[in-house]
């Protein structure tokens, strides 16, 4: 039950968490980065999700297979909170904050022109549209799965996806 087991003077995380880390961590950091546009922030919030899982949940998961789903929801919730905080802060400090979608140097260097443009436009979309598009086209979730994950209706998922794609298309075609 305990998330940590004593090992001499230094507690270590349980084996189940290590296994979970190995199977999920990198994948979740990539997902979070696509949502919050910053690898450092993404790592922080994924680590935070693992800590929450370790603290509370081992004995509560219905089965071993539900742990990844729990982590994914925790990461999505934290990414949404992060974006929400950014948005509120921007509203109050419009002239101080840099544009949220400014591409990082690593992205500039590594991504192709097509990818760079696509991600820049994606970063300017409303948070919900961006979230829906990433879940649909990166995680390959169905509309029903996205609806369940985000707590919205399948129709709303369809609307956000449609509007997000339309905005991508129009802005990519703009000179």
């Amino acid at each position, binding site marked *: *039950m305990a*998330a*940590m087991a004593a090992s001499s003077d*230094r*507690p270590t*995380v349980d084996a189940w*968490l290590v296994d979970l*880390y190995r199977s999920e961590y*990198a994948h979740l950091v*990539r*997902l979070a*980065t696509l949502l919050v546009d910053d*690898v450092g922030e*993404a790592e922080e919030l*994924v*680590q*935070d*999700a*693992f*800590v*929450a899982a370790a603290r*509370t949940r081992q*004995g*509560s*998961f*219905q089965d071993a297979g*539900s742990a990844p789903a*729990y982590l994914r929801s*925790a990461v999505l*919730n934290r990414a*949404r909170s992060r974006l*929400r905080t950014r948005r*509120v802060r921007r509203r109050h400090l419009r002239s101080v904050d840099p544009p949220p979608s400014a591409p990082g140097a690593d992205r500039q260097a*590594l*991504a*192709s022109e*097509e*990818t760079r443009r*696509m*991600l820049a436009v994606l970063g300017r979309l*409303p*948070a*919900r549209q961006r979230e829906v*598009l990433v879940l*649909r*086209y*990166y995680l*390959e979730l*169905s*509309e*029903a*799965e996205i*609806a*369940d994950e985000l*707590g*919205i*209706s399948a*129709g709303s998922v369809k609307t956000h996806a449609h509007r997000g*794609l339309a905005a991508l*298309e129009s802005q990519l075609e703009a000179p």
Partner: protein
Amino acid sequence: MNEQTPAPDPTGERLRRALAEHASTIQPSSDGLERIEETLMSESRFTPTRRWVVGGLSAAAAIILVVVGIVVIGSDDDPEVVADTTTTTEQDTTTTTTTTTTEPTTTTFTRQVDPAEVAYPSPDTSQRFQSAEAAGQSYATDVLGFTELELGEFREGDSRSGELPITDGSASQETVILLRKMADDTWYVLGSQFRDITVEVPEARDEISSPFPTSGEALAFEGTVEVIVRLQNDPMPLAEDFVTGSGVPPAGPFDKEIPFEAPDQEQTAILVYRTASAEDGHITAATSFPVQLLPS
């Protein structure tokens, strides 16, 4: 998995490739597990006892000599986890007090559902619903303001979620109430959606302060959509305003700033966007969702 992706979808395909390409360049640092471990160790140093809330603890607490009162406040970022049998749950914020009397002088309060995750009922009250239909019906009348109500058949998404269609008796305007069974195994309303009232700003679970901007599209009688701001645990409106979309198809855009009486501290509220009958003014349909109100 992606059976609903329309085909052809060239922009979607380009996006899929871009996301995959970018994701492949992201290399997480190698010390993630160490950081997680450090955080857990740090917490264990500051937590002399394990902070577990065990099912049934509150009943036993009344007769034991040492009463441990545990006040639990859920994290709005952690998804609910449901156990098969006895649920053992630790929460983010815990305060512990100890007394040696035989009377329980501290209050044990376990809130299993985060208020920010649901619209109704308030997890801070004792109101709970054992069926989705009961929760939906109460929400329709007590929150949305339906006085003429016809419940449709509950559409199950999975064993713990689904949609309840409702109308005012006229089949033309269907409001869909979204429901989910949460960690305490009772049903909660997540919000409602009416096809002809689409709210783009704010979004569910957004933090808003007064005045808040709202925009979207609406098709309603004379284009008028009433907007109600109310706390999750108090039916008294903090604001009653309106936005104007279109009175004739297609739906027209609305964009307005709405002031409300700001609470003293951050609280969960429900935003209701509703339209009324041209004949007698009864509520016919509503889109609604929870938000977080920030203090002024």
